[in-house]
């Protein structure tokens, strides 16, 4: 039986995340630690592919709690996100009551709004499964895809962790779940939501962190390959690209190279596997060929210097 003990310091948080193979930089670990201890939601904003969703999954694994995931899209409403009534069952219940000879229509009409006809959707499920010894982890993914009415609804949930169902009453969580909200910033989230959360902008990792991540997540790659890959991607992030590769793309590329049994990078390998790193044709056309070769040469020189000097 594992303990659901929250980490006691920032270092313990880093260790907790590292046990689940997530290498976090110190500012992110600080924000996570504060969110856990102060029982506030954590708002993670950043470009696609930097590991925002991964944090929630890793937290759930590390704390041994259930992960409840709500994927947001435009037009998400309470019926899909919070709860819904099981209308067919309610209709059947009415017919059964009539067939059994129950004549008090008003009583039937009251009985059909009972908890056994309530379908739980993610938000309600997260509040209900959050117990004292095992708080659940609620991941609200890509909140910027949902629209303003849904954000307004979320305010009540995030501040008091309760849901009001008109027919039943108010349902409260025994203990507030750990809430992680992610956003890709395609739309500005309203300040009222951000005010209730602890904010953190997840940036691209530094070279040292990225190397550590590769060592944990793609250990089958050789050391030299990892160094070359990290240096190449770090250099690529400074070029003017439409979509700069994130850490997820780096991992994809490394695994692709390992699958092709590449021990070192050479221009041909890079040109062949560029599709794993860059996803826009304009970017690929810009980098493929001479530009990739030039970057590779620069990378090799720098690594050679580091190894020698």
């Amino acid at each position: 039986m594992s303990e659901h003990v929250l980490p006691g310091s920032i270092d313990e948080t880093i260790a907790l995340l590292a046990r689940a193979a997530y290498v976090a930089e110190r500012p992110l670990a600080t924000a996570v630690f504060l969110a856990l201890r102060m029982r506030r939601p954590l708002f993670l904003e950043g470009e696609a592919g930097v590991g925002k969703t991964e944090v929630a999954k890793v937290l759930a694994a590390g704390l041994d709690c259930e992960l409840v995931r709500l994927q947001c899209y435009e037009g998400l409403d309470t019926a899909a996100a919070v709860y819904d009534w099981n209308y067919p069952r309610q209709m059947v219940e009415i017919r059964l009551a009539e067939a059994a000879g129950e004549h008090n229509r008003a009583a039937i009409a009251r009985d059909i709004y009972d908890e056994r006809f309530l379908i739980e959707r993610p938000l309600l499920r997260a509040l209900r499964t959050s117990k004292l010894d095992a708080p659940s982890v609620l991941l609200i993914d890509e909140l910027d895809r949902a629209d303003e009415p849904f954000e307004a609804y979320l305010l009540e949930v995030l501040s008091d962790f309760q849901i009001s169902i008109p027919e039943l009453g108010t349902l409260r969580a025994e203990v507030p779940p750990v809430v992680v909200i992610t956003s890709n910033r395609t739309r500005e989230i309203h300040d009222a939501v951000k005010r209730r959360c602890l904010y953190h902008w997840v940036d691209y990792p530094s070279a040292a962190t990225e190397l550590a991540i590769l060592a944990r997540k793609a250990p089958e790659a050789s050391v030299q390959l990892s160094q070359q890959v990290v240096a190449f991607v770090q250099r690529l992030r400074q070029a003017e690209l439409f979509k700069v590769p994130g850490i997820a793309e780096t991992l994809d590329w490394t695994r692709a190279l390992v699958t092709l049994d590449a021990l070192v990078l050479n221009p041909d390998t890079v040109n062949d596997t560029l599709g794993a790193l860059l996803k826009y044709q304009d970017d690929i056309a810009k980098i493929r060929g001479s530009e990739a070769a030039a970057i590779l040469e620069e990378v090799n020189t720098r690594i050679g210097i580091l190894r020698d000097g």
Partner: protein
Amino acid sequence: MHFARALRVAGIPVGPAKVLDALGALQVAGVECREDWHAVLASVFLTRREQREVFDQAFHVFWRDPALLQRMLHLLLPKVHGRATRNVTPMLSPRAAAGLVSRVAEHTAVNEPAQEVEVESTLTFSAAERLQRLDFAAMTPAELAEAKAAIAHIAWPVAEVKTRRYRPDARGTQIDPRRSLAAMRRAGGDLLPLLRRSRARRPPPLVVLCDISGSMHRYTRMFLHFLHAVANTYGRTQVLLFGTRLTHITPVLRDRDVDAAIARATRLVPDWSGGTRIGACLHEFSLRWSRRLLAQNAVVLLLSDGLDLDAGAGLCEEMARLQRSCHSLIWLNPLLGYRDFEAKPAGIRAMRPHVDLFLPAHNLASLTELARVLTAQARLPHGELPWRCPAPAA
């Protein structure tokens, strides 16, 4: 607490609740080193990516050297000109510096006198990036009334889009089980009335790219007035101005008062009535803004005369990419309404094929004209009705 006050002056909204939160967070975290302190305060005080630079600078100056703060205050008190701040702290951004010195400096800073721009030739463009400030005359009540009337009557050439939400609708095609059961409960359980619903519709987001270069000088004031009215009535609107640079002015247009909003916009934009570099500005838009603003089937409205300094170099690809990224691209050109005009400039010829709806106009003297141009050519597919602003409550 003093740090919170400094942040507030620098423009980062920090309320008293956040100060309390910060104190609680610092107690919980038990920080020992500077980086932890920085990270804790950042996670509590910040709400946006853009605030981070100002916050970083303010933090480093505030917590590193309190004596520096004293020295800056001491230097500024007897001075009259605001330029001294720039000499003393060349590394700080003006906003961080404003947050850290007393407000006396702000009030006594002398602005350069507003320059009158006199450009007689409106069909030319200039290579020089003239960074100038413009002074707009305040709007008269007659103009304000005209603007309101004009905006209220525009039939936007954008079709409403279906959303995933439902609205009660007596003639809808779907049955609404929830409302039906609730109605049955209210009626006592004897009858089950079948209430219906249908999908809600709403207008798509609007992104306006407005040219403010020298060749459009005549229309700048009117367009700003129009953009302010649109930003406050249409709903989901984003406005960007471009000349030689691209500036995002939507936050300042939210001010209800037209003159205040335009005054804030003039302070924000450096390149009024300068040259035009449409290709470069569209490229920057694609790189930095398109993925943020064009996310939900947005409609892009381009207000420009198409006269480009770079003679259309690179403009074709940028317009093609813009057309692919948005739902529809509307180009309103205030200079092409002449009957015998042939599109000779290379910029206009490069842009024309990539536009979904081309609205030439000529002699746009007033907002009413502009509204009429937008309305008259609302051609929508499949007989859709163009969208009109809802009438304001009387």
